[in-house]
């Protein structure tokens, strides 16, 4: 795995920074691509996710949803450069969490290298992943969480949940050491966020009127535009995770696009056959489902693998939000668990099936003669899900104590969070 490889290069370099800088400079091609990728992934949170989620929230909570997304990006950005990066990528403490050697980015200079790119670029790229992961969680809880509680939750969750899990997979922790394959964040980002969302939504309870009154999305147009921006940004997310401008990055780009397209087509078809109409929301959701599922597999699977991954992602996503959610009865408002959690699990398993040594010698799945990989993937999924579930519960309960409750009062929920929490309205439409 490229992330591991670059880490192995990073560690000795950081012990002897002067020697490393003398040896060689960064690869300019790799550096340029990862700088661009970082900017692409950045856009996914305050633009892509904000619109995707904002359009799905009710009209009276659209701005609150955008505000939560944007503030999550800002908070996680600052946490990352203060203590987040070192907790994820500092010298490993027993494979569980990074040490404090890079607290406030100490020990890193303009000449520091991570693999072939400057460490500043590497840590910024990784920062955008921390930002989007915590922002993904809010999909489960829109329409009812206090803004102050969301801020406290974000700070605690990035610190105590995201950073350790990122360390496990990419920072020299136990999951990477065990050989778990997670190219761009199936476990770290999607399963982690999806499970956290589920726990938080159960803790908060259902929205007032859930299942009884109609809860129309404020704008499917915004949601579709958000999905398109996520798709665009995901090329940086997946192809950038190679941390180099090379053939594996190109292959990751190829399978990412294929899986997204097939996810959308599969979701649309399933919906068309079961409810009679191919909806725009179905297409947009299918795009995201396909992108989520290919994320852990992007640098490991070949094109034929991505066909199966994409189709299955669209079907799993559709049936989990349209059928499973109703049967289980939780109110995951915008389906962070249904889409990110479950399609993330599918992607992590599929990586254990389809990883092809012809694409990337770091990964060999069941279909290429390595059944043990599938078991390793299962362990990494269970480990991430269990830690995320328990950790999120603890973090949420601590948040509740600090902010005097997680949920807005009933009048605020009825009035809408845009006006009650922010004193603004998303639209001013003069009707006559």
């Amino acid at each position: 795995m490229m992330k591991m490889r670059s880490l192995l290069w990073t560690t000795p370099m950081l012990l002897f920074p002067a020697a490393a800088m003398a040896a060689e400079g960064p690869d300019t091609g790799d550096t340029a691509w990862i700088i661009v990728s970082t900017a692409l992934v950045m856009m996914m949170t305050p633009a892509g996710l904000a619109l995707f989620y904002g359009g799905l929230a009710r009209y009276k909570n659209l701005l609150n949803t955008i505000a939560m997304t944007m503030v999550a990006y800002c908070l996680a950005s600052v946490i990352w450069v203060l203590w987040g990066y070192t907790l994820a990528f500092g010298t490993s403490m027993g494979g569980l969490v990074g040490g404090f050697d890079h607290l406030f980015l100490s020990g890193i200079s303009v000449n520091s290298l991570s693999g072939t790119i400057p460490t500043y670029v590497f840590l910024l790229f990784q920062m955008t992943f921390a930002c989007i992961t915590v922002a993904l969680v809010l999909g489960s809880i829109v329409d009812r969480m206090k803004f102050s509680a969301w801020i406290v939750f974000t700070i605690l969750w990035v610190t105590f949940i995201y950073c350790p899990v990122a360390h496990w997979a990419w920072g020299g922790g136990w999951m990477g050491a065990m050989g778990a394959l997670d190219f761009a964040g199936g476990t770290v980002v999607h399963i982690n966020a999806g499970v956290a969302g589920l726990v938080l939504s159960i803790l908060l309870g259902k929205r007032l009127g859930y299942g009884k009154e109609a809860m129309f999305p404020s704008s499917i147009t915004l949601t579709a535009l958000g999905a398109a921006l996520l798709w665009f940004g995901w090329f940086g997310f997946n192809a950038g995770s190679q941390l180099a401008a090379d053939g594996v990055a190109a292959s990751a780009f190829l399978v990412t696009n294929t899986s997204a397209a097939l996810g959308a087509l599969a979701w649309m078809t399933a919906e068309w056959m079961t409810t009679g109409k191919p909806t725009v929301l179905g297409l947009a959701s299918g795009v995201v489902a396909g992108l989520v599922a290919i994320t852990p597999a992007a640098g490991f699977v070949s094109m034929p693998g991505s066909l199966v991954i994409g189709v299955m992602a669209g079907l799993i996503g559709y049936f989990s939000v349209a059928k499973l959610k109703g049967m289980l009865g939780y109110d995951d408002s915008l389906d962070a668990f249904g889409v990110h959690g479950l399609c993330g699990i599918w992607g992590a398993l599929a990586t254990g099936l389809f990883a092809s040594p012809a694409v990337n010698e770091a990964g060999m799945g069941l279909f290429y003669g390595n059944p043990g990989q599938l078991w390793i993937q299962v362990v990494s999924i269970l480990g991430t899900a269990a830690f995320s579930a328990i950790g999120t519960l603890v973090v949420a309960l601590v948040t509740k104590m600090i902010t005097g409750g997680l949920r807005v009062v009933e009048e605020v929920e009825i009035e809408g969070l845009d006006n009650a929490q922010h004193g603004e309205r998303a639209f001013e439409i003069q009707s006559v």
Partner: protein
Amino acid sequence: MKKIEAIVKPFKLDDVKEALNEIGIQGMTITEVKGYGRQKGHKEIYRGAEYVVDFIPKVKIEVVVPADQADAVVAKIREAANTGKLGDGKIFVVGIEEAVRVRTGETGSDAL
């Protein structure tokens, strides 16, 4: 004096307005309203969550005319707003006791 209240399909508003202008009706008041009658609502499904939309947008037109013009106005509105499908709307005629023009204080039919 009579007040004609017509609830019609929104896209028929301009046709009704022009038809009434043709017979010399100078003013009207409109309101955007929602309701349902024989035309049933419709169903929208978002990620499997099914919402029935009962109330359909309509426009309510109110015109007050001298009593002898009422039948002509009703006929014109009916003609202009008719598509032959369910949901074309309804017309109600009610008596009006008095009318006053705010600017001049004229009353009765002179105020219309």
